[in-house]
């Protein structure tokens, strides 16, 4: 072959440039719709935990950022007639397969409005029963608060608490119950700030 060596570099460079341009253009073109979809998704998960009847605002837009244990937590607030009727925020628990992300909402009295699992990597068939699509286990937290049941009962039955674990999977529900308890404690600690009318 009489081709000079640099020609390979030029060819590779040309392909990189060409596809780079195509990707950049696609990214620009899709950035806005993707952002819109992400917002829709958030709204969707919020509407699962905050009943429509308690608010007349858009909780996705009414946010508040609080620092808790060195982490920023974004709180979505539901208000009606200018009063805060509920707050929703994301909590994290540790399950069998790593982090479990949940969205929970609490009303002004500190009672849970709803909890949903957003993302997890639990074992299919065992730990994934925390998904509302699989079983209704996660809905039994609705209406509970830090006082009811008492704090020492906020555990799975195996640990002396009052919540059912799944047969074959204790770590997942244990992580979820702990995360929800911590979520309620977060609410109790920051109640004044959370309910403050702006």
């Amino acid at each position: 072959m009489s081709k000079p060596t640099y020609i390979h570099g030029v060819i590779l460079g040309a392909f990189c440039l060409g596809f780079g341009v195509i990707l950049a253009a696609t990214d620009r073109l899709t950035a806005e719709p993707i952002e819109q979809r992400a917002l829709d998704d958030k709204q969707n998960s919020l509407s699962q935990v905050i009943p429509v009847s308690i608010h007349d605002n858009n909780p996705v837009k009414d946010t508040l950022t609080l620092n808790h244990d060195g982490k920023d937590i974004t709180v979505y607030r539901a208000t009606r007639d200018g009063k805060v009727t509920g707050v929703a925020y994301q909590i994290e628990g540790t399950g069998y397969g790593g982090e479990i992300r949940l969205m929970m909402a609490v009303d002004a009295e500190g009672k849970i409005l709803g909890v949903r699992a957003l993302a997890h990597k639990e074992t299919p068939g065992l730990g994934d029963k925390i998904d509302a699509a699989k079983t209704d286990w996660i809905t039994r937290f609705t209406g509970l608060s830090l006082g009811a049941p008492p704090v020492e009962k906020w555990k799975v039955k195996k640990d002396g608490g009052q919540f059912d674990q799944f047969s074959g999977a204790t770590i997942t529900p244990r992580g979820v119950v702990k995360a929800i308890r911590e979520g309620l404690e977060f609410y109790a600690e920051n109640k004044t700030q959370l309910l403050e009318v702006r």
Partner: protein
Amino acid sequence: MATQYRTIIKDGLWDNNGVLCMLLGMCPTMAMTTSATNGFGMGLATAAVMAASNLLVAMFRGYITHEVRVPVYILIVAAMVTLVDLSMNAWMHELYKVLGLFIPLIVSNCLPLARLEAFASKEKVIPSLLDGLFMGIGFTLSLTAIGAVREIIGSGTLFADASLLLGPAFKFMEMRVLPSDMNVLVMVLPPGGFMATGFMVVGKRILDLRAGKQISMGGAHAVG
């Protein structure tokens, strides 16, 4: 010409099937066949990427020198995957929520790369497009079959959540084959992937032997 196309189609679907014969793309095969629907979705996304990248490589095959062909192929596959990922997220979001997880995994699949090297870099545009498409469809069928076996034994259902992937019209496909207390959970877990795939490979070879075909090993470089 027509016989060449027939061979390409038959190769992709059965004779030289990416999973059951070449044993390529094992990473997504194991990871994504926990249900028939998952396998099907992963297969479809892979087929789209394979058809597009085969087409592109065949178009540019005169310009890609031998020395830099592998980086260029990887570049093309990665660009196609990103393109599919971004545009599905933007314009087919419902589908993306189900398939989204699988799409970046296509990059880790060596089947597209193998077809670029073995086929598209030597052949004309139309046969290459067909090869990519039918290799992809063959991949889809194998993954769906493996997923179906694992799902039936592991969770007792078949095509669960198919309506999420294909639209509400496909609700009829979702069925329960075995009662839920008869599940053999291990089939949904990673070992089940190896077992189901292994038995399927053996099954295909037995069928081929019965049909009097010669078994070819490592057919990645088979002539299309």
